[in-house]
């Protein structure tokens, strides 16, 4: 299934979402935040046919003929961008498709996602990259495929990287399978310099991780689950930041999860190396003790860290060592996740809970301001991938996210648009919810916002 040219999909309409082409819309009295241009104010936004034609106080005569949405208590900000998701298509359409994944992204407040290449076939050539763009065309969410660094993600021969760049690719990764050969990693970092491409890594020394299924520590000892030491991540991060420094290539450490790894990135940044990194909501919201339920909804790779690791992630996000928040949205079928903890596949979904969990853990519990959060979720990911900025200013393309901070909600996995139900946040009460997006000429708003529309 795909998005049609002119009307929203039934799956959204049936559940009360309002999905229209933008036409002329006035977002009235919103909380406007754009950390990229230092904007944090109350005001209105006028959108006409996909473009922002006014921000702040909109003169009466300009409002004429516009649909008006009362946005009191709702943040309007540059479109959020999740730079680490698994859309599973092609190959594992029983877990997720480009349609369901992007619909989940839109419902979760994201206007853009970057999808990982561990599909079947792998995203390692221009043909399949073009197919991804084609499948995502028409919908409200920009899909930026991340191509494989090496052919078929086998870690041996580089993909046709310059070709992929020409097709639009802005990042490479063999996600899930780290480049075991330091030589291949070195050459990949070097080769990517000619197009200023970034290499996003899944940092794991497979020998050290061995058969581990949860972070090694007191909790793994008590639970008898095979331990995955933080060193499995940290030694790879150490190797890769050194190679980035040596080659001058650009490294982005994916889903960083341990104190030692974050220290390595902090050190690399101090040296002036081209190194960035991201962290997931589950790694800043949860720790390894959650595995005591033996529920595979707490099993992912890298595994949940200790509380000390979690605090290190929070510190890293606060001081900017961790540039971006990304979900590592990894849908699996219910049957697969019902297996014994040690046998179930790694991964949790995150697109529809990221905003709420970030609001709870970062804004509510750890006093981040919204502007910093939006910097990590909208501005930084685009900068890392050298994509055009989404800005909340007159004349810009309307690429916006809406976050309703006026009411909380409870996570119900059955209500997800993703095919996945494998969330570690089921039943969580969250203080803010994604309320819609505006992008690629589409305006979609959450059912709770539907009553705020007036003509």
């Amino acid at each position: 299934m795909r998005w049609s040219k002119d009307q929203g999909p039934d799956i959204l309409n049936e559940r009360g979402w309002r999905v229209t082409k933008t036409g002329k819309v006035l977002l009235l009295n919103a909380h406007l935040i754009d950390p990229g241009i230092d904007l944090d104010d109350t005001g209105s936004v006028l959108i006409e046919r996909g473009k922002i034609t006014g921000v702040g106080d909109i003169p009466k005569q300009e409002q004429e003929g516009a649909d008006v949405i009362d946005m009191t208590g709702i943040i309007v900000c540059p479109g959020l961008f999740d730079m680490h998701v698994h859309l599973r298509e092609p190959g594992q359409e029983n877990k997720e498709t480009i349609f369901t994944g992007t619909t989940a992204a839109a419902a979760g407040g994201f206007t853009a996602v970057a999808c990982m290449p561990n599909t079947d076939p792998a995203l390692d050539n221009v043909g399949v990259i073009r197919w991804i763009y084609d499948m995502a065309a028409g919908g409200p969410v920009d899909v930026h495929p991340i191509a494989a660094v090496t052919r078929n993600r086998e870690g041996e021969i580089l993909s046709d990287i310059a070709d992929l760049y020409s097709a639009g690719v802005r990042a490479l990764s063999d996600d899930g399978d780290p480049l075991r050969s330091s030589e291949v990693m070195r050459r990949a970092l070097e080769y990517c310099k000619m197009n200023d491409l970034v290499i996003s890594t899944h940092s794991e020394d497979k020998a050290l991780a061995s058969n581990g299924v949860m972070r090694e520590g007191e909790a793994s000892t008590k639970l008898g689950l095979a331990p995955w030491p933080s060193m499995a991540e940290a030694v790879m991060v150490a190797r890769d930041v050194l190679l980035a420094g040596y080659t001058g290539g650009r490294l982005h450490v994916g889903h960083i999860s341990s104190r030692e790894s974050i220290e390595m990135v902090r050190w690399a940044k101090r040296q002036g190396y081209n190194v960035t990194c991201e962290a997931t909501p589950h790694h800043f919201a949860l720790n390894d003790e959650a595995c005591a339920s033996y529920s595979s909804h707490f099993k992912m790779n890298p595994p949940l860290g200790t509380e000390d690791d979690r605090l290190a992630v929070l510190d890293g996000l606060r001081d900017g060592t961790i540039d971006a928040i990304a979900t590592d949205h990894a849908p699996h079928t219910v049957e697969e996740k019902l297996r014994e903890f040690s046998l179930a596949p790694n991964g949790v979904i995150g697109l529809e809970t990221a905003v709420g969990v970030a609001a709870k853990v970062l804004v509510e519990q750890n006093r981040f301001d919204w502007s910093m959060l939006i910097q990590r979720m909208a501005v930084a990911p685009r900068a890392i991938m050298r994509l055009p900025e989404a800005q909340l200013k007159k004349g810009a393309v309307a690429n916006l996210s809406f976050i309703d901070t006026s009411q909380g909600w409870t996570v119900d996995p059955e209500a997800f648009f993703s095919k996945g139900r494998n969330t570690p946040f089921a039943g969580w009460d969250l203080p803010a919810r994604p309320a819609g997006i505006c992008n690629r000429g589409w305006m979609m708003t959450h059912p709770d916002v539907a009553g705020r529309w007036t003509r």
Partner: protein
Amino acid sequence: MALQMKHLLGLEDASREDISAILDSAVSFKEVLSRPIPKVPTLRHVTVVNLFFENSTRTRMSFELAEKRLSADVLNFSASASSVQKGETLIDTLKNIEAMKVDMVVIRHPMPGAPLLLTQHCSSVVLNAGDGPHEHPTQALLDMMTLREVFGTFEGLRVTLVGDIAHSRVALSNIYGLLTMGAKVAVCGPPTLIPRHLENLGVTVYHDLDRAIAHSDVLNVLRIQLERQKAGLFPSIREYRETYGVTPARLGKGSKDMVIMHPGPMNRGVEIDPAVADGPQSVILQQVTNGVAVRMAALYLLSGERDAME
């Protein structure tokens, strides 16, 4: 006498009262086992299934005997873990069992947490007969019953587990149960076979067997598996035997009163010398007898049957 626990999944959260109740009840059942007709009708209306997802001759026989001595209807299900991994999921197996209306399930499974998963998907009473390196509560209870017979009390008793703590299915249950009952617990083995932060559970960690012996009343010697050597966790069986093998010479003259336990099956001549295993200090066969009594007690107390024992 009802237990606070509904299932016997492990001893981590077991109360002192529950452990005492099972051990007390086991004493009565041990008496039953010595009768000319060693059988009581206590669980006559109860159906028990033994779900064994990996081989375990002793534990399975011990449970089956305990169930038969209690007059329960017994079903046996065995499947190798590999065939389960390929075919039917655990949940499907459990739903089938649920549909057959069994009252109690005894489960042995290589994956930690499998018995807990069972309680979430079926209404039967669950007894954990070992979930990988996590817990094996009836083994710990039979060890404790044996120790109580020998020493009369756990208070201040110094018990040391020797060997492969990291992969043992009996170590954690022994640690939790003994600590709850007031014993002092230590472990002894090479650092590669002792899981990280184990001392946070309140146990002393030794790497020197002689020091451990000097500070112990009881050695519980664990089986060492050859595949750990292949995995690079220790250099050779020879070196292991020389460093951690419990021999008469190692025990020395100063430790005549030392009690020696082993959960079986033994590698004679590796972790334990035959002269020690069969010697006067060994209570290894007493452990096996007590295994049946303890399992009868656990089944009885968890069954909800309130018939007086005859």
